């Protein structure tokens, strides 16, 4: 079946080459008309500069308005946490079972709604933000410093976590990311450090901080180092009440409180510690900053973080020479993420790898919607949340702290591929409610996805493989045509 070209009002400036498209497929969540125009206007170098330092890039108004209308855009983590704690207390004090049940359900619904809003905000940014690199990194760091929304009260906190702890530092200093996640209540709840106190040691977070966030397993630290770091982290916790604890006078000046984060000296182990061969004298929260400085300055940390970035942007098993160069930049710049990325994007290893990275479900779904509907703003993000659930990669949905896999083998098993094809069919079979207003009012626009748009003819069609063309020719309906395109190897690699 031949594709029907829609006449598009948007002009695409100039022709783009296969390599341009592949390059944009990596640096962005997939080209849209606006992306291609900006790229053609600036050229690759200046476009990359803009992506690495996206200060002037603004979210288009419709998406910005939708985000401004969300509850999470008006309430801080501290407020939300205080609310949920108060409500839990009220419910526990209720004597009537029916009342208890109704209130619990209402609270649970509120948690689900807030976590959904956080996912909605992230999806809207991924779809429409011109700062596409920043958005990909926001996802990557969320995955690196992963939290699970169903742990404790994290559904109330994941929005703030992403917006305040992750996104502002996504292209900034790595150390700031570590400190921002370390002091955020979402992480403190998720890895139990909120409960880590002198005499009640919980080493869960201390272990993952070194294993998953900074150094990597097998990089040389020991069980003893984990226990010592856990001692350093005693007293780093949460206080959502706003009331300061009553403290001995010598402790009062060591107390810290910001938002729902609290450092409580009364819960801290003030003994001296030895971490990675360095003595850390008992001093309070300064120990934490000292420990993070020490960890982040290890060559192992530079390599570990560089490797993670290269796995996401270059290949499943990135070339050691590239990692070494990136790690050098990391150490020279004390962990400047944009600088490390610049050395990645300007490497020949990066260029050589274009078109060979299998899309994880997030890239698959977001790039699909960007291709199918281009800049046309969707109203409803529920379908996208559902597709990501079905493909096994929901936001804030990784139960274990290691984050989702970044490799093809993590997403391309037989079971996963057949599911992806089925989702391709679902997406290709109609808009799935993407244009239905979220408030439940009737949809004003319908939109069967027309994948064969001007954008398709400039960025996809010219570069299709013979096998994909043959399949598209065999399609008996628009639905089949859409399904085959989205299921093709051509579309599933970036």
């Amino acid at each position, binding site marked *: 079946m031949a594709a029907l070209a829609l006449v598009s009002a948007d002009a695409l400036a100039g022709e783009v080459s296969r390599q341009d498209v592949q390059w944009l497929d990596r640096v962005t969540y997939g080209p849209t008309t606006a992306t291609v125009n900006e790229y053609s206007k600036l050229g690759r170098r200046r476009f990359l500069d803009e992506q690495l330092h996206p200060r002037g890039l603004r979210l288009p108004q419709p998406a910005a308005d939708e985000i401004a209308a969300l509850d999470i855009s008006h309430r801080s983590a501290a407020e939300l946490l205080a609310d949920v704690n108060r409500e839990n207390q009220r419910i526990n004090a209720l004597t009537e079972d029916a009342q208890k049940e109704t209130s619990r359900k209402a609270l649970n619904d509120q948690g689900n709604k807030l976590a959904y809003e956080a996912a909605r905000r992230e999806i809207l940014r991924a779809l429409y933000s011109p700062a596409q690199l920043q958005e990909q990194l926001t996802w990557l760091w969320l995955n690196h410093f992963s939290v699970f929304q169903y742990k404790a009260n994290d559904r109330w906190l994941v929005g703030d976590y992403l917006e305040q702890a992750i996104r502002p530092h996504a292209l900034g200093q790595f150390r700031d990311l570590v400190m921002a996640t370390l002091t955020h209540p979402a992480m403190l709840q998720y890895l139990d450090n909120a409960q880590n106190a002198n005499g*009640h040691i919980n080493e869960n977070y201390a*272990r993952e901080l070194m294993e998953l966030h900074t150094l990597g397993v097998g990089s040389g630290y020991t069980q003893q180092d984990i226990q010592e770091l856990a001692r350093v982290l005693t007293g780093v916790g949460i206080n959502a009440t706003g009331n300061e604890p009553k403290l001995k006078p010598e402790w009062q000046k060591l107390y810290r409180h910001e938002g729902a984060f609290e450092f409580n000296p009364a819960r801290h182990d003030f003994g001296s510690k030895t971490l990675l061969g360095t003595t850390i004298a008992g001093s309070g929260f300064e120990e934490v900053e000292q420990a993070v400085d020490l960890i982040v300055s290890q060559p192992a940390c530079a390599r570990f973080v560089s490797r993670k970035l290269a796995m996401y942007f270059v290949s499943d098993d990135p070339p050691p020479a590239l990692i070494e160069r990136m790690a050098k930049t990391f150490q020279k710049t004390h962990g400047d993420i944009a600088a490390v990325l610049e050395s990645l994007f300007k490497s020949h290893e990066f260029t050589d790898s274009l078109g060979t990275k299998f899309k994880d479900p997030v890239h698959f779904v977001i790039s699909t919607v960007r291709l199918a509907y281009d800049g046309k703003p969707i109203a409803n993000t529920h379908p996208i949340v559902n597709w990501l659930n079905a493909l096994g990669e929901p936001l804030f949905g990784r139960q*274990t702290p290691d984050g989702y896999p970044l490799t093809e*083998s993590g*997403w391309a098993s*037989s079971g996963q*591929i*057949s599911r992806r094809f089925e989702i391709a069919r679902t997406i290709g079979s109609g808009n799935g409610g993407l244009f239905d207003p979220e408030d439940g009012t009737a949809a004003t626009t319908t939109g069967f996805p027309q994948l064969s748009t001007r954008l398709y003819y400039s960025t996809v069609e010219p570069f299709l493989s013979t*096998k994909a063309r043959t399949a598209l020719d065999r399609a008996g309906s628009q639905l089949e045509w859409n399904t085959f395109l989205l299921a093709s190897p051509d579309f599933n690699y970036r």
Partner: protein
Amino acid sequence: MKRRAFLKLLGSAAPALTVSGRLFAAPASSPRFLLVFLRGGYDCANVVIPYSSSYYYEARPNIAVPKPVTSALSGVACSSTCPSQAIPCDACAAADGNGALALDSNWALAPVLRASIAPLYAQRQALFIPFAGTEDLSRSHFETQDSIELGQPLQGSHDLRSGFLSRLSSVVNGAAPIAFTDSLPVCFRGDSDIPNISLKGVGKPVFDTRQASILSDMYAGHHLQQEVEDGLELRQEVGRVMEQEMKDANRDAMTPKGFELEARRVARFMKDQYRIGFIDVGGWDTHVNEGAALGALANNMDSLGKGLAAFSQELGGEWRNTVVAVVSEFGRTFRENGNKGTDHGHGSVYWLLGGSISGGRIVGNQTKVDRPNLFQDRDYPVLNEYRAVLGGLFASLWGLSPNEIQRVFPGSTPINLNLV
């Protein structure tokens, strides 16, 4: 032999169905093996309880499972006046209350497994191997799970593309392996493109034969060709299993849910076609408020136990020809932590279930559970290394030669615990 090479060998004799299971349809007498991996490090000390150790009760002031009341499973009925004289004794359930169920004079089973695993133990179809595990000491979930699934010597460099169940599948005649997971587990990594499909929350297949063949053709010659073909065909098989479920549901109204439903589906898959299976169950990382006889760990165990019991029932007569091993990456700290939970430990307790195993006993090297015997004054030691234990099991299950065992677990010396 690589599966792709095998398919070529079949050549024109190959039927339209392309999935390994059908092509490999194993001889009826070939035993089945299912590996159940409890991800997160389950707290074995609260499931198979060392109740003769006073230190257990000392070390867990808040979370210890109470001592047995009756001698429920230890081979004698609870009392000579017991009306049922059955083991386990239903009549004594009330007397047992939240107490553990005695397995022998030292060990007892979590009471939440009374209706599921206890009867299997009483029928000698379940056994437990305390102090089992790996010598990997990272105490990292991910590192330890991977190293167990790779099954290679800890020293030296590792081949990250070669898991032990994949190697086992290449030495067992007609192995027909499959993973019942969302993604392909590390233990099935290898040259032979082993299929996987998750059996939770799946619907009916959506592609007809023509569409499936167009989709497959797009991947002809692509390195994902095998995965694409297997995936499309497995979805058809799931459709057939679901049709059977619908028919059964019309006969009796109870429809199982959660892991039990999944385990029943696994049994249906394994009954006819597949001989080596893998499934994982998560949620065992109980750092906080894990509970004792009741609580978070007990709830998760309840669902696991019910699923495994359902798996044995669904297999019917074929249960005699089936072995299930339940493993986890490590045990947990023997002492409870400051939050009524436990942290990452070392030695675990492995389980073996099956219709004709030598069950009803505690197996393997043992030591007294006491503080001086704890590893690093913190965890169970590992006295039964998993490669030696599983190697010994595989040798007797399929009559594998020492050379074949070496291919599965290089550099390991299998121990024969007379498990089957």
